[in-house]
């Protein structure tokens, strides 16, 4: 057994986290910043040189998940910086970055170290600008992302909010809708653009990692690939007619910032995973843009409904354990419930009582007890599964240890996925994405049935 020391009996833990269902803020900020065209996420790591480790870890984790180059730099502060502050090193770093790599934007995020010593990033940015260290047409943006608060989701949200801070309204509306997709795959961002394109809504999608973290192999390496939201687009977000923020945890803060600062109205929607959340997303686009929905979209929706009805006998009543990030889990829970499946154990590492409340609402008519925990961990999830087994686990790659020990069918979905491919290229948002999720879920459930059925019960047609 891989997790042989996990007892069935659940005891309260107040200080020890085991097998976390989250990681720290800066990696989220780094992923978000990679969705800006020509951007070099700059990991601001104060103190001594060794602290370049944060940047190394975040780059490694993102690289293992996306299987693409992830360029990011670090301040590699000296020990003196802990006493005198990290300003000198940051200024040196800014100079080196613009000289050697020349990005359009340096997106600086903090770490637990710079936050603990209390470096003042806005002040350092001002000083860099005043000293002429920021060339014409180049930008510094920054987000405070202390690793000891929230999770990687919070860090993502904070950097997206910093991106919204680049808005420079001209007073003339641009006729576009801002869409903040949240921490989804590059393929999902591409799919959102396909959907809005079909409907005929002009959008500014930010961040947009499509074309950045799912690039081609062509014999050419571009440190700043073609993809990403451009600076001009980010500046123009203040002139948009409204913002659709997909996911309360990932995207709402940035949308509210644009509303508060520039009176760009916003709607906070769930991430469009599954039938109903996608319905609401498409309907919101229709209302905002004042268009009718094309037949192609209606048809895609119909195909998803068709597949659910065709295969309902294999989905009905199946118990599911879920682990991941709040916005994804909310949409997934709703999707599973809509197919008469039973998500009974649900854990996110990200804090937020609102999450537990929302999950309870979504599952209240399911007719069975639901275990849900924010700021929980996968050790607890495993214990829940030991106490009440499930038919399916959905979560990131670390779930494979539970899935193997307990012999449970398992679908990889979320972050990080370190051992399977496809997530960068095939979306799970929208109706088409719903078809893919369903294909994956049915695949593992029916593989299990084929494995477990006796020879006399083994069937050709399922």
């Amino acid at each position, binding site marked *: 057994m891989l997790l042989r020391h996990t007892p069935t009996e659940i005891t309260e833990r107040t200080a020890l986290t085991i097998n976390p269902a989250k*990681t720290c803020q800066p990696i989220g900020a780094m992923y978000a910043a990679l969705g800006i065209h020509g951007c070099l996420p700059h990991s601001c790591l*104060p103190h001594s*040189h*060794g602290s370049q480790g944060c940047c*190394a870890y975040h780059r*490694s984790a993102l690289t293992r998940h996306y299987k693409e180059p992830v360029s990011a730099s670090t301040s590699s502060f000296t020990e003196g910086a802990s006493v005198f502050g990290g300003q000198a090193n940051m200024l040196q770093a800014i100079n*080196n970055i613009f000289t050697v*790599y020349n990005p359009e934007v340096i997106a600086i995020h903090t770490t637990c170290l710079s936050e603990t010593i209390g470096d003042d990033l806005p002040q350092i940015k001002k000083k860099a600008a005043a000293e002429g260290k920021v060339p014409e047409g180049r930008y510094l943006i920054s987000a405070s992302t202390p690793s000891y608060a929230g999770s990687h989701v919070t860090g993502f949200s904070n950097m997206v909010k910093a991106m919204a801070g680049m808005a420079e309204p001209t007073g003339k509306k641009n006729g576009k809708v801002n869409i903040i997709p949240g921490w989804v795959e590059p393929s999902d961002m591409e799919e959102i653009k396909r959907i809005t394109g079909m409907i005929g809504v002009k959008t500014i999608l930010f961040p947009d990692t499509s074309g950045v973290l799912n690039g081609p192999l062509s014999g*050419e390496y571009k440190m700043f690939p073609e993809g990403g939201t451009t600076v001009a687009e980010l500046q123009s977000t203040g002139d948009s007619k409204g913002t659709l923020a997909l996911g309360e945890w990932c995207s709402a803060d940035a949308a509210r910032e644009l509303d508060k600062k520039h009176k760009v109205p916003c709607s906070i929607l769930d991430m469009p995973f599954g039938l109903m959340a996608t319905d609401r997303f498409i309907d919101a686009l229709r209302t905002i843009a004042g268009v009718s929905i094309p037949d192609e979209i209606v048809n895609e929706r119909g195909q998803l409904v068709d597949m659910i009805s065709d295969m309902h006998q294999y989905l009905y009543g199946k118990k599911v354990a879920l682990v991941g990030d709040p916005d994804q889990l909310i949409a997934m829970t709703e999707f599973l419930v809509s197919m008469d499946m039973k998500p009974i154990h649900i854990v996110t590492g990200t804090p937020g009582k609102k999450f537990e409340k929302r999950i309870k609402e979504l599952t209240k008519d399911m007719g069975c007890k639901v275990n849900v925990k924010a700021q929980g961990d996968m050790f607890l999830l495993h214990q829940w599964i030991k106490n009440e087994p499930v038919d399916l686990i959905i979560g990131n790659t670390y779930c494979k240890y539970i899935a193997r020990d307990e012999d449970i069918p398992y679908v990889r979905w979320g972050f990080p996925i370190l051992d399977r491919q496809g997530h960068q290229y095939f979306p799970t948002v929208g109706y088409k994405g719903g078809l893919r999720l369903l294909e994956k879920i049915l695949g593992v459930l029916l593989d299990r049935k084929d494995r477990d059925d006796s020879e006399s019960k083994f069937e050709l047609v399922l």
Partner: protein
Amino acid sequence: MATATKKKLVQWGPAEVKAALLEKYPPKVGRKRAKQIMINEALQNDTPELTANVRTIPGIITMRGCTYAGCKGVIMGPTRDIVNLVHGPIGCSFYAWLTRRNQTDPGPDGENYMNYCFSTDMQEQDIIFGGEKKLAQAIQEAYDLFHPKSIAVFATCPVGLIGDDIHTVSKNMKEKFGDCNVYAFSCEGYKGVSQSAGHHIANNQVFRHLVGQNDEVKPGKYKINLLGEYNIGGDGFEIDRIFKKCGITCISTFSGNSTYDQFASSHTAPWVKVNFIGAKATAKSLRKIAEYFGEKDLIDTVEKVIAEEMPEVEAALAEITPRTENKTVMMFVGGSRAHHYKELFDELKMKTISAGYEFGHEDDYEGRQVLPNIKLDADSRNIEELEVEADETRFKPRKSDKEMKALDKAGYKFKQYDGLAADMDKGTLIIDDLNQYEAEKLVELMKPDLFCAGIKEKYSIQKLGVPMKQLHSYDSGGPYAGFQGAINFYKEIDRLVNSKVWGFMKAPWQKNPQLSGSFNWE
């Protein structure tokens, strides 16, 4: 940005390449990097010619990680029956969770915490009010849940800044439990200039808290310790197989597939400088071990084992070498790893045209003779040097000074290391702490057939159409140590440098863009 095409090679001399690498830097950065790029003269100087183990330049995209990564991730990570508890915000423990491909074999009932990730998940109030209470409670909870024989505590950056006394907390908990050894590592990420400081801190504490805890004499005629082996991709399993065949007993491995008890007993056996990467290196190392013990039965068994193992190695080489001969490779990895893998590339008759370490020291490049002349800078001085003295009751020199001198005279250098430079061709480029910009430039100018580094470097190199092999964690492969490992490696390199995929980068219409009139359907 750079494009590597397979058209005619432009012949760049090493001086020109070096100048091109430095060209774009601001003057101060250029001057610093110039000292870390050496055109190899393969001289055996006493004074280091190359600067190494110095600070990374802010803003320059580095390959390096931190002290915590070196201590928890590399050294202590592969030990299976110690609960490795990380005191800090969640990220540090999360990123070091099973990402280094260390394999272990606990058997069906053995203790194994390697698949678990333990953290105190420090929150804002812990940073403000101190995290000692939370740490003590977390140690208690780990003890109550698992009753491990040992709990190791690792500090992350904020812990050092806010001044949590992790050593006292650990000591108190150890005394409270009585049957569980609890100790801590002050391996905050900001200490030192790279992972290397973390290796050092880990070793200090292993010697202080673990080595010598078990005096029980283990069975075995020829007993040794193996240091610097992490069982990545099963390297240690292959070395164990060979040892077993030779009748050599490995008391402890620091730290692949290791246990608490291995460390605790390691003082009962010696170490000698060996290398099990490369088939010839493996044979050489086995002979060195046999000569150290100097017993005929061991010398004969080792020769027998080598004679048994080598034919398969030679057959693999005979088949593969025609496809790898004269291909060029660059390697930038580890603190001695690049040198070890050079052995395997030599066996494949490939040319190492540039190499260096990510976190090596001057002696790793130029040999142990430069050790007395390495200047200690402020960063190195901050890392504790452990003073080791012979234990009066337990120190047993296995060879007298006279015997050691005789062996030395006979050519057996048990503790000597000549460094990477001595093994590299004249005129090759040796580069310390290579960064992403320089890597890309090197590939563009020198067009190697293969590049070796770590995961962060992998895909930017491969986008250029050059295959890239991870030598930290072997991508998905291994073992590459020992005889069978060498064969695995030859096959892997053959696969990489001869893969069809590198020929698919351009579509037919990109290779031949001219239109030649409309096509007539027949």
